[in-house]
């Protein structure tokens, strides 16, 4: 039986009116502290010269990468990529090193900068409302989006829907579904009428950023063992060599 496709959110920037209902919904649903947010407005806002103006913004949150760098990077494996899409966080493990924040190519995870030891600072980011998915519901942000700018479904269906919109509306969209390939593919897919870079979305290749580092990491144990063996060998060799030399040059006390 083929594995079911992961879920994905499809955002159509041409429909988004920057009303921020998704953001309030997220904050309420997920008890996000007042000084933090898991989803924020990204994009240039109004641009152009009066009166030839344009506007573009998107709600920005975790991309739920198919090969998440945050999960790859975290030293204590606090991130898990679920089969149904979400990249979720186990706060009980986190040591607050913030390497995930460096690793994430989308700048997604946030840290609780103003929490002292007792307030238990944590990383926060969108969970794709995994707990709602478990209950058979849509993510809170998608559920409330007034304009249908956010949609939710299986990733392949969302990509098909996005392609359909591009095909049916020539000229309306940039001919690319952001997230289809970026960083190895993501579960947040974006359709836009303006360059993705303008929206604050980084230009990324089809390989996940963690590919090289994971390869290097994979060589660690063999390398360590090999290197230890070499060093032991060298050490023994040198020792023997010196012993022999010493023996040969018995009488000489000090060389230098």
């Amino acid at each position, binding site marked *: 039986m083929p594995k079911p496709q992961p879920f994905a959110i499809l955002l159509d920037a*041409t429909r988004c009116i920057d*009303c921020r209902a998704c953001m309030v919904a997220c904050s309420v649903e997920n008890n996000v502290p007042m000084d933090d947010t898991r989803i924020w407005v990204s994009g240039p806002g109004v641009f152009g010269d009066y009166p030839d103006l344009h*506007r*573009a913004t998107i709600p920005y949150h975790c991309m739920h990468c198919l090969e998440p760098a945050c999960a790859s990077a975290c030293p204590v494996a606090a991130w898990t990529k679920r089969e149904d899409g979400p990249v979720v966080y186990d706060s009980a493990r986190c040591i607050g090193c913030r390497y995930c924040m460096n690793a994430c190519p989308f700048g997604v995870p946030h840290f609780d900068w103003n929490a002292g030891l007792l307030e238990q600072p944590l990383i926060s980011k969108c969970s794709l409302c995994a707990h709602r998915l478990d209950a058979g519901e849509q993510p809170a942000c998608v559920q409330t989006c007034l304009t249908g700018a956010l949609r939710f479904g299986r990733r392949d269906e969302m990509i098909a829907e996005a392609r359909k919109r591009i095909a049916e509306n020539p000229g309306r969209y940039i001919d690319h579904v952001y997230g289809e390939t970026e960083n190895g593919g993501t579960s947040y897919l974006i359709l836009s009428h303006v360059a993705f870079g303008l929206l604050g979305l980084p230009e990324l290749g089809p390989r996940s950023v963690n590919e090289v580092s994971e390869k290097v990491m994979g060589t660690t144990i063999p390398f360590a063992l090999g290197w230890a063996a070499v060093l032991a060998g060298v050490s023994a060799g040198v020792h023997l060599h010196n012993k022999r030399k010493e023996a040969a040059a018995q009488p000489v006390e000090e060389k230098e």
Partner: protein
Amino acid sequence: MSDRRASASRRDFLKLGGSSLGALALGAALPAPVAQAARRQGLLDSRGGGVIPTLCEMCVWRCGVLARVRDGRVVKLEGNPDHPHSRGRLCARGQSGLMTTYDPDRVLQPLVRVGARGAGTFRKASWDEALDLTAQKMLQIRDRYGPQAMIFSSTHNLSQTQFENLLGAYGSPNYGTQRSLCFNSMVTAFLVTYGIEEPARNYDNVEYILLVGRNLAEAISTSETGALIEALARGAKLVYLDPRFTKTAAKATEWIPIRPGTDAAFLLAMIHIIVEEHIGDCDFVQQYVQGCQQLPQAMAEYTPEWAETKTGVPADTIRRIAHEFAAAKRQALAHPGWRTSNFVNSFQTERAIATLNAIVGNLFEPNGCLVAASPEASGVNLGKPPQPAYPRITAQRLDGVPWKYPMVPLKLGVFQELRDAILAGEPYQAHGWFISRQNPVLSLPDRRRTLQALERLDFVVDIDVVLNDTGWFADVVLPEASYLERYDPLSVLDGQVFLRQPVIEPQGEARSALWIYRQLGERLGLADFFQYVDEEDYLRQQLAPLGASLEDLKASGRLSVATSKTGEITFNTPSGKIEVYSETLANAGFSPWPTWEEPPAPEPGQFYLLTGKVGQHTQFATQNNQYLHKYQDEPRLWMNMDSAAALGLQDGDWVHVTSPVGRVRIRLLATPAIRPDCVYMPPGFGHFSKALRTAYGVGASDSDLHVTYVDPISGGQALSQTFVTVERA
């Protein structure tokens, strides 16, 4: 912008917000104030968890809500998929609603003023004391000066019928509503023209949409906002007239930064083209439009070239848009607008819109995009408690209707005049003001005058959920239970009945308006007018004619009522037709045709001061909501960057904005998104009530600047007609 930086310095809210997350846990230790009715109804499990259908009240659109409750606390609000407004979705304000209920600044006990009026010093009082005091003062005023000396005012809400019942029973003709600040020109114009208050819009088949300053992407009506975006995604064209590049403008096919106050010229020129070139729906016009023969002649002078000189929009553009609009025929829609309180000529703008729709015949069912019936009046007959007739009122209305404003429908009134009559003492002196669910200190133009008026009165009572700026000036503040804590009379929409019911028990001593009005009625000796035992009893009496049980309604939150829909178009006007030519207007001494009235314009160096909603707040009410505060943009004065540069101002500078009546200090937003001759201030900021700890001190109030200008026909306030100067602070 609610980027991460902006929200990064706001941890204090958690501490301040006793009700927010940290304290939610604390509260859970207390006996859970779960809604007893909902529990009895079986909507909640034994631990006080479950989902309760109710209605949003974060704005007047009143979407359906499914409230999720856990351990006796509301934890999340979802849009009710079965409500035609929410269709499963809530806007930012609706989503934030539980914070309005759990606002740490809620007033949860009656307050009685102790210090000077406006000093904001109150003591807590029992309901008995506060109600007795209020009744005693109201009786005193009635006995001394007559019932007309007591002003009542309230903004659209579900218990408004009982508010009106109170004022009717008390016998005062003086009733102020938000209407004249909001939609008088639209409603008056459509009453005159179509005989209905506000036609419904239908986006199902629309192909060409003309929005005249109807900022649907920010002044949100969930379902309509969604329908517009849906139509645009389908390929409909949107032409949007607004001096500002709003979020709606950003979605428009064409944004026309029209000169403020000249929309009528633009629209009249469109009518001119359409009738001149016979490209409208002539059959429809001949059958239904009063004055169709003379229309071309009446519009003769309004050529696009003429309109260009008024509006600044090229004649060719107007001509092209007229052609496109007419070509779309019944799939064209010129939106009637909502807050149409812009200029003293806004009534004419609305008349032109009504005419434009009529001449392309889009009122035709089944495909028409403008529906000549208002959605609320859908033929559902609810019961009501029995009551005696109201006392006869002989006193003149202080707001000048109809003696000064013959065309203003009685129901709409002219709120600004009411305030000014307090100050003038003409035609008689008012002595008391009873305010419910309204914030006139901020919503009326010229805040200083409003405060002076309050100063002049013997007694002011305010019913609210927080101590807003009006409550700050009241003598008695009565805390209403929030919309998640109370019942209200039924809401009727599209042939369905919807229920607001408590999701949690009221916090503190807060009580429903139904309860408060009845208590007051009893103390005023008007018990006969309030013949209901409690809220549930009131609702049962409402439901009686429908043969429906309250219990069923509580479980589902709604009830479909069979209504007879006639396919026939009838217009409730004197002629029974669409009165593009109105005898009524002529008789009142106004132009019977939609006509051009030259609006005032700013002197060089002055700017039009514009207002308009933001998507994250409702009016003057939600700025203290911490969730909305979190996601709002910093309120700034918008000015075109070229104009700013010419004044030597830079983005972020502090500036003084000065009008003939006031001056405020605010930070400048230098942006390309506004006409160079306009500035804009988001309304609802600049609260001075220190009891609003989140909102206090944020931004400035445009109500400090607005001059009171009244449209002589519709009584609407002209909120774009104040001209200001700006200089570095």
